């Protein structure tokens, strides 16, 4: 039977086909076609394949969870966990390796890499727990503080924060039985983080006081350059991480000024990773899902983003945790664990309630890592590695249709997870037999690229690109 279309019918069908082909990428990425739980979270425009949930994909036992002392992580207690002798040996090894590599011009550790790494850490604003004193407050202007609904406040903050450099923004309401436990009991400098029934925040030699009325946590991501991360674990790769922290210090100060200008307090991280558990707060705010990395994976940038937070007394409509099939995918994938040169990451198929050492807090079912192995590798190469982030299939630049297809499929069903992992091995293979410090992608190629976006970040990610 032959098709017997009139010319008019045929043209109509061709038009539909053209429209279908034209709109297909947008439909799968869902940026414009679908709306992401807009009733609950009007401020977030997430991809259509991301669904929200009242609980995160990582199980939490709030009764078991206690407020954590940040300095118990390997950031603060590495020498105690591995012993002084090993710590000294690693320090010596680090000095020797970096010294040799800079003289040998090892790609990623050359003079120019080290110079850029150093440069990217400069020029940040002052980082403080307490809000700035010199802000132009409503009081100084003789007007009342800003008033509006928690939804309006969330919308306003998101718009302001996106403009100042945040990738995604979410909000968590503190509850003493649950989410408040994600605020550190002690900061990296061992100061007690005390939540008290007082009007104003304060700080002395021993403690920082958060007023009880400051019940909301603003959580945000700052994306990192995926292409630069691909040079992990080199000094060049560490540069982009450093740049994100530098950016955030200035960002935090601006956010504190903004909140003060509205008549509210913004209590910031006093130093890197202070105040509260970033991945946990990011998970509760729906910025991403926990993963085999025991870190956050975002739908927008995979793990190639840093998470930051601030406590405020400005009432904000909380955003909900998400389920995009990421944690489920991790059960099958294991690529990061295979790539990890120190074998620090878990190879288990299911997450566990048991931490692998005193550096992790109990009370959540996670893929706990041996953090001392990871740190020991960092010390040997003199950088913060990041090979696991780089290997992750979700850490892509999301321009090819395949990424949207993979994300939609991962979210819809776990059936194709192992096939998708296999495809990722073809498209994101990495080096076959790397030696100590060898990069995922050649840093010397990076130095020839003058067409990377500003800061190496595609800032239109998450927005409609038609």
């Amino acid at each position, binding site marked *: 039977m032959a098709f017997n279309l009139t010319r008019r019918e045929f043209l109509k069908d061709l038009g539909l086909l*053209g429209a279908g*082909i034209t709109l297909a990428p947008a439909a799968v990425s869902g940026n414009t076609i679908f709306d992401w739980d807009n009733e609950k979270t009007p401020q977030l425009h997430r991809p259509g394949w991301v669904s929200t949930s009242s609980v995160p994909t990582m199980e939490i036992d709030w009764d078991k969870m206690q407020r954590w002392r940040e300095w118990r992580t390997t950031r603060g207690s590495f020498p105690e966990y591995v012993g002084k002798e090993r710590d000294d040996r690693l320090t010596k090894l680090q000095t020797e390796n970096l010294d040799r590599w800079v003289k040998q011009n090892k790609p990623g550790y050359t003079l120019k890499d080290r110079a850029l790494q150093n440069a990217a850490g400069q020029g940040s604003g002052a980082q403080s727990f307490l809000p700035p004193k010199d802000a132009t407050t409503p009081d100084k202007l003789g007007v009342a503080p800003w008033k509006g609904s928690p939804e309006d406040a969330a919308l306003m903050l998101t718009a302001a924060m996106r403009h100042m450099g945040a990738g995604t923004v979410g909000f968590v309401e503190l509850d003493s039985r649950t989410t408040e436990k994600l605020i550190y009991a002690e900061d990296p400098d061992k100061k007690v983080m005390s939540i008290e029934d007082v009007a104003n925040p304060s700080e002395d030699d021993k403690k920082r006081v958060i007023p009880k009325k400051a019940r909301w946590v603003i959580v945000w991501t700052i994306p990192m350059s995926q292409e630069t991360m691909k040079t992990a674990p080199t000094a060049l790769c560490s540069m982009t991480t450093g740049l994100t922290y530098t950016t955030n210090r200035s960002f935090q100060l601006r956010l504190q000024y903004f909140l003060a200008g509205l008549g509210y307090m913004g209590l910031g991280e006093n130093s890197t990773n202070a105040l509260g558990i970033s991945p946990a707060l990011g998970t509760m705010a729906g910025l991403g899902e926990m993963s085999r990395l025991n870190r956050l994976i975002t739908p927008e940038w995979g793990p190639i983003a840093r998470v930051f937070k601030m406590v405020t007394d400005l009432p904000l409509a909380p955003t909900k945790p998400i389920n995009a099939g990421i944690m489920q995918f991790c059960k099958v994938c294991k690529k990061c664990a295979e790539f990890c040169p120190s074998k620090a990451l878990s190879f288990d198929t299911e997450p566990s309630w048991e931490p692998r050492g005193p550096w992790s807090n109990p009370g959540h079912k996670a893929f706990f890592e041996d953090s001392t192995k990871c740190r020991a590798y960092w010390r040997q190469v003199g950088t913060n590695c990041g090979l696991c982030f780089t290997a992750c299939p979700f850490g892509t*630049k999301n321009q090819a249709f395949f990424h949207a297809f993979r994300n939609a499929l991962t979210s819809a069903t776990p059936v194709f997870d192992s096939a998708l992992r296999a495809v990722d091995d073809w498209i994101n293979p990495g080096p076959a037999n790397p030696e100590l410090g060898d990069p995922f992608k050649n840093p010397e190629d990076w130095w020839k690229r003058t067409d990377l976006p500003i800061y190496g970040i595609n800032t239109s990610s998450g927005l409609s690109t038609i």
Partner: protein
Amino acid sequence: MWWLVLGIVIGALGFWLVSWAKAHKVAVQWYEWLLGVIAIGLGALALQNYYAFLREMEPQAAMVMLALLGIPALALAIIAVGLAWWQNTKKVAGAPKKS
């Protein structure tokens, strides 16, 4: 934008193909059209992924996607055209000769 251009090009080519088939009294079966449409869809996806992966600075991924989607697209297109050609030549060959 490029998708719009591609849509227009495919639309124009399709229109020409149908007009040509009609003018030459070439009968095309519904499944041949279907195979053709799938081939065009896969081909468009192959192109999108190829160029986007190049923009992502992942040349190996670009080649993998070109092969993964482009080869089936090409195979389907060849099958669709081959089937239509074979059936039409068969018909012509089997037609009663003019006396």
